[in-house]
């Protein structure tokens, strides 16, 4: 590329770098601050001395959380829900998306099925009828109330279908000539070829379930089943910390200078985002790919 060394070009570079660095600070600062408060002493926080880095470092808040058990339990719940959900939704989505990606001569009722799917994108019954069906199915207060009603996301279905469509037809034709049937083609050719696509869509589903709280609030009544995000909402939004503390049966953090409800809140918040922070740099490239497929073909 031709070099541009004019002053206006240098000024532009300065503006670009400053704004991008500013953006990164704005993105990262809240996360670092949350961590810092969670490991700082109460007195430091209350006197307003925690601004960026931890002051009077201690991990009392995390000790309290792990001894009390509420948050580790909801953490485990979240992991279970996410894993089961990814398996179920991938199963439902793959089996639906694959036939919809094949030529209509091979798939009976394909046109009807795609109309059924597309219509659901435009018109949904909404919160109340969905709530009633879950209740009538007897799914209330069970893990399945979170998993089954969102087993297929039509958006992800479209992404998956586009991936399948991209597999060259000549591959299948060759297999047909060699005497393979539909089952062999699906199982031995298409699935192994779409491992990357399945991983991408599986991650979409996984992140969705890990971060969701609304259905859990609607359908779960016993707090031993709550996922982490719902605990976050409870503790932070409804100021139920006092009740939580009583339930924890631990009064040591009430005493001076150890920790207080504020650092417990911050520690809980940090624990809820740390798994995503840890994995997202590795999975983001799959997401970007999925976004592109979805926006071009969707």
């Amino acid at each position: 590329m031709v070099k541009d060394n004019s002053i206006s070009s240098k000024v532009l570079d300065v503006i670009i770098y400053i704004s991008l660095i500013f953006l990164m600070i704005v993105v990262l600062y809240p996360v670092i601050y949350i961590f810092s408060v969670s490991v700082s002493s109460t007195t430091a926080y209350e006197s307003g001395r925690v601004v960026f880095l931890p002051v009077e470092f201690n991990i009392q808040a995390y000790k309290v959380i792990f001894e009390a058990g509420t948050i580790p339990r909801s953490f485990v719940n979240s992991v279970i829900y996410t894993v089961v959900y990814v398996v179920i939704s991938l199963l439902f989505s793959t089996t639906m998306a694959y036939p919809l990606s094949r030529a209509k001569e091979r798939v009976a009722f394909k046109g009807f099925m795609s109309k059924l799917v597309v219509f659901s994108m435009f018109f949904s019954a909404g919160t109340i009828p969905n709530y009633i069906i879950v209740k009538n199915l007897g799914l209330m207060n069970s893990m399945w109330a979170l998993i089954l009603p969102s087993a297929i996301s039509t958006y992800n279905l479209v992404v998956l279908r586009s991936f399948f469509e991209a597999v060259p037809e000549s591959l299948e034709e060759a297999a047909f000539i060699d005497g393979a049937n539909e089952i062999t083609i699906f199982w031995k050719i298409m699935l192994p070829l779409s491992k990357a696509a399945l991983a991408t869509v599986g991650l979409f589903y996984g992140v969705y379930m890990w971060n969701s709280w609304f259905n859990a609030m609607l359908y779960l009544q016993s707090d031993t089943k709550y996922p982490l995000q719902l605990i976050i909402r409870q503790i932070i939004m409804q100021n139920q910390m006092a009740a939580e503390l009583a339930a924890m049966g631990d009064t040591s953090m009430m005493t001076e200078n150890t920790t207080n409800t504020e650092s417990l809140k911050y520690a809980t918040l940090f624990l809820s985002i740390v798994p995503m922070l840890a994995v997202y740099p590795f999975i983001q490239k799959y997401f970007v790919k999925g976004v592109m497929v979805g926006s071009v073909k969707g």
Partner: protein
Amino acid sequence: MASMQKSSVVEGNQKKGLSAWWGRELRKARKGKFLLLLMVPGLIYYIIFHYIPIGGLIISFKNYKPGLGIFASPWAANFGFKHFIRFLSTPDVWNYIWNTIALSLLHIVWLFPLSIILALFINELKSVHFKKVVQTVSYLPHFVSVAAVAGMLTMFLSSQGTSASAGDYLNEGIINQFLLKMGIIDEGISFLDKTSWFRTIYIASDVWQSIGWSAIVYIAALSGIDQELYEAATIDGASRLQKMWYISVQLIKPTIVILLVMQVGKIMSLGSDKALLLQREVTYPKSQILSTYVYNMGIGKGQFDYASAVGLFNSIINVFLVIGANFASKKLTETSLW
């Protein structure tokens, strides 16, 4: 195989009508059942969790008695339209509709230009390494849950109204600590309890969460532009700003238009997730949107029939908006959304 396919295509073009269609599909099914069987779980899912609930919308026209169930419940007054009449004659409702539209519009007005500018800036970077760092960092908030974002906002903005002279900041969030220390305010402000702050908080956190992610599509579109165009412009004496405007922006215009039209089509379908977490009863005049209204009336107050009517009203408007958006997109860019 190929000839078989061809003959069935010809057949398909000749015969029309329901029974012909049924016969044709059945013949296909007899030839190969596997692909049809594969779709059965998905079909059951869509029937149970999409189409039965759509049938359940009949509750909007009934006086719902939980003991009787939807179908046995008596029809509502005014030919079943009682709940719709009540909804449209509630003065606050127009306010809630406006709140929904206002939040969607503000979201578009802020996020659209900002994410395009971000993409343009990232596109101008020469260092591949720095580019990667900026992109990765800017995606981070997209992976943070709405609950956690609402939690952050609640804690950062919280206040018990501590006065500046108190000397300690117990229960004051970071924002209030800062403002008190700087002497900008005399007394902590509990921002989330202030109606006038709701939209600012909602939109600012929206921008924080999605600016990097929304830029992806534009970055991809920009990377597809032929570098020779820039070189030719440079030789013709164009400045970098001119190149950004006349080449980069012009060439990603179709992408911008499609995404904009899609956004406008969703203007009334703002979800309840975030608003529910951020709203307080005192801020309802600004924070109550249609989806949270449905939740608060239905699940909150148990008025399933009324809330379902509100939801149905909203869904019907959404269908028209999306169809209109698709039509507009076809006209403007010759690209249909489906």
